[in-house]
């Protein structure tokens, strides 16, 4: 297993993404952050609080479960759903930033866009990821990337975050490790 990002690297990356989100959206008006469970949810909360700190305001943040929209449901036993929590103002006309830990095939984001489509009609949707490991299978790209990480297919990217795993780190392992 090879360490790729340290705790400090992750904090730096999230801070940079926070700045980029403000910059690209020319402020924080109409901004809504939606994390994709489970690690994306916590990353979204961290980015929201960082944006809030920079901009001195409260950014609506929620979580978007995509399980029912996955296209690989039949490959594994059924998974429990995780809650979808949409901030009180909804998403209609908002600038929605989806947040996930790793961008890989793009299928998760496709499912997230489908799930989002059922909840309302945002003005625009952007994507922030901590890691982009390549190997896209759909025409999807991230607007904000913590780190581009070239990987081989058989490698596994492990993202650990304090809220779940007790520490912040990103590492690469071979599948059999």
């Amino acid at each position: 297993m090879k360490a790729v990002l340290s705790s400090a690297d992750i904090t730096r990356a999230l801070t940079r993404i926070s700045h980029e989100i403000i910059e690209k959206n020319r402020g924080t008006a109409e901004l809504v952050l939606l994390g994709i469970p489970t690690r994306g949810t916590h990353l979204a909360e961290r980015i929201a609080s960082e944006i809030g700190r920079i901009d001195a305001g409260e950014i609506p943040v929620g979580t978007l479960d995509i399980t029912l929209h996955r296209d690989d449901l039949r490959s594994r036993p059924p998974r429990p759903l995780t809650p979808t929590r949409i901030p009180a103002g909804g998403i209609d006309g908002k600038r929605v930033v989806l947040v996930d830990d790793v961008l890989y095939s793009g299928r998760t984001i496709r499912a997230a866009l489908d799930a989002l489509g059922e909840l309302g009609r945002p003005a625009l949707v952007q994507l922030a990821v901590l890691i982009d490991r390549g190997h896209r299978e759909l025409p999807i790209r991230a607007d904000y990337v913590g780190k581009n990480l070239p990987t081989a297919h058989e490698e596994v990217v492990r993202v650990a975050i304090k809220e779940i795993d007790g520490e912040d780190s990103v590492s690469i392992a071979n599948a059999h490790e």
Partner: protein
Amino acid sequence: MSDNATAMKKHLLSINDLTREDALLILDTADELARVSDAPIKKLPTLRGRTVVNLFYEDSTRTRISFEAAAKRLSADVINFSAKGSSVSKGESLKDTALTLQSMGADAVILRHGASGAAHRLAQWTNGVVINAGDGTHEHPTQALLDAFTIRKHLKRSSGNATGVGEDLSGLRISIVGDILHSRVARSNVLLLHLLGAKITLVAPPTLLPVGVEEWPVEICYDFNEAIEDCDAVMMLRLQLERMKSAFFPSAREYSRLFGLDRERLLHARKKPLILHPGPINRGLEISAESADAVESVILEQVANGVSVRMAVLYLLLGGAHE
């Protein structure tokens, strides 16, 4: 996203097929799906390409429509196969029908049948998932799940938890009143409510309790006034009047005086209990006309809850691969 795969059994034939964790997973999933049902677009792609057959040997429009709505909201293809007027009524056996449905590619069969154990038999003959939608006087597991869902929503919500999600039913006292002997709803509810930690009291004349009920995890009470005193929820069962002919009770009047629910009886209740009824109500028999109105609201809510619970069951049994 969470990768905790569930380990539920393949079929839902009886509440005995569920662990406490399975039951809570179904209720929590239903809770999440209820939000989807509130959304303007009421359709999810989850079961696209899957075929669900409603195989109903007894008329039960309510249950059939509920399963149909649940399956369709998950984008499954639904085939309604009513026994009346089909080859089934011309003497085709349940086994032949099962094999026919299998060759048609049914991924799941939802079976309503007058014979206890019919769903168990069907599961022995087909590769697909079998969901018991009521078999004779045995069980009706999805009805019990929706009853538990409704009870939890009303009695286990708190300021931070509007629907009681994640909670079981421990600490609640629930009375089930009426014809326990012939009730599949009662059998499933006894198993499920006990599994979820509730204290159950059965209230019925001794003729309408099965021999062997001593083995059930319940208390028996012949006095409805006493049972209702300390009760959080009361579940009234539908009484079939033809039972009178087999000497189960002397008259409708005596039955409703001793075991019916009316305003006077409710005066004995210390807390205001939640009243459930699987519907349709025999007004003036098991529930007095004036109390029935109060119950109707919960019955309507039960219809919506029924769809959510059945969506959850369909998703958890059909949404993934079963090895």
